[in-house]
């Protein structure tokens, strides 16, 4: 059994969260509210010291670097960081209802940046590259001059599966006839894929629980 206070606190909090499995109760509520507060504080602190301080404050007021790195060099001033700083302060105006309309400006910048970059990247990686990868091997896979029928069948299935899946995701065309049949085939392919996802998801959830039990039964109680 561990003699470290940290481990005991961690174990007690873990048990409080696990108590939710019995039912919602004050211990769980305490743990959960504690987590909400700690995580909000945690994110703010990490954001401040990792990014806001070195990438904005120090670049605007280089001498501030002395506070965190007394021996380090003083970097050059970069007045342009005023732009994101002003946008950031505008964003905080959301807290004052009368001025909150100004907070739309930084959000508009953030949305524009995300959309502008996303568009090109999604078209490149998730549209072009996916079609390219489906098409490039062709429909007849050969190895050493002879046709590899297993690989060829698989390739046919990939092409047909991708194509019918795309058909399933069309909405303004008729749902009957050939298109409807292909779409139903697409749904089958999607369901096999989701089955695989389900299996992998189960694997992931169990792995995290095993890790937690290793802590509780091992690090804390010393049983395993």
């Amino acid at each position: 059994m561990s003699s470290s206070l940290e481990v005991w606190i961690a174990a007690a909090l873990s048990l409080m969260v696990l108590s939710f499995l019995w039912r919602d109760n004050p211990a769980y509520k305490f743990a959960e509210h504690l987590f909400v507060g700690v995580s909000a504080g945690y994110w703010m602190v990490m954001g401040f010291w990792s990014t806001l301080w070195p990438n904005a404050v120090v670049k605007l007021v280089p001498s501030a670097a002395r506070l965190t790195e007394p021996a380090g060099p003083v970097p050059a001033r970069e007045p342009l960081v005023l732009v994101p700083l002003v946008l950031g302060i505008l964003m905080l105006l959301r807290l004052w209802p009368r001025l909150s309309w100004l907070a739309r400006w930084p959000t508009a910048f953030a949305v524009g940046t995300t959309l502008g970059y996303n568009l090109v990247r999604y078209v490149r990686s998730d549209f072009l590259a996916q079609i390219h990868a489906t098409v490039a091997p062709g429909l007849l896979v050969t190895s050493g001059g002879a046709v590899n029928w297993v690989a060829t069948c698989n390739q046919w299935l990939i092409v047909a599966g991708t194509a019918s899946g795309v058909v399933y995701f069309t909405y303004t065309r008729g749902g009957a006839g050939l298109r409807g049949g292909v779409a139903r085939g697409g749904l089958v392919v999607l369901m096999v894929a989701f089955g695989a996802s389900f299996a992998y998801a189960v694997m992931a959830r169990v792995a995290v629980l095993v890790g937690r039990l290793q802590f509780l039964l091992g690090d804390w109680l010393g049983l395993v």
Partner: protein
Amino acid sequence: MNGAARGDVLQRLGRLDRRWLYLALFACLAATLWRQPLFRDGLSTFSRPVFERIEALPPGAPVLVSLDYSPASAPEVEPMALALTRHLLLRGARPVFVTLYPEGNNMLQRLRDQAIDADFPESREGRDWVALGYKAGRQMVINALRQDLATMYSADLRGAPIDSLPALAGVRRLDDFAIILALSSGTPGLKEWILYGGDPTGTPVAGGCTGIGAPEFLAYFPGQLVGLLGGLKGASEYEAALADRYPERAFPRRAQLAMGPQTVAHALILLFLVLGNLSYLRPRRRSPGRREGRTA
């Protein structure tokens, strides 16, 4: 037992309080953890290219390792990070650690304790590896690195300016890295490294992810994604391969040891799936008219 009695039992099973199910899962896992079975494992179609790519790295190759996970998925992804870091240092490559998760710096601290300081005490920070750490901004951090490392990182976590670090000699931006290894547990993660890092710059991307992401990421394999360690099994495969290749180094095998309880849990959940559906299908078979078709 006649048919009616069996249906009765199944119906009662269908109403079983979920807490019994929880208890069963807990008991099975605890018992297996206590027995500690160790199964043999080896590389799969998806993990082999990662191992081989790292084996083939020239000494001194800079490798970007992104620790995009938090304690929430550490049991799955951390063993991969440990094994990959050990492999990189064994090959004499220079891992450069960044993270897009606020918790990443804490994860990096654990990695430093468990893999670097414990197994490679002779390696020196700044010369053999670099910890650049966390920056806010998610995928936009990748975007900034694509252009210039220095726009976001003027110094490493120890405060040393990046120009002064021998490990970063000749590394100015993303495509100077031999490969990007992203250890991913969600967004931002491997997908963002492919979309914002690998595809625009042509830098190879490989990595590991939680089981949740694995099926989706395989759509990028092998063109946009060199290889993938999928979930705990992927980590276990890599640990086993590392042990086979470097038998003189006895590294801990966290993921491989966790595969025992994992297997038992899978069996239990499959059993529950079957039992649950037996009690669901049973009454319906007797009165086919009650069938409720629902679209999933």
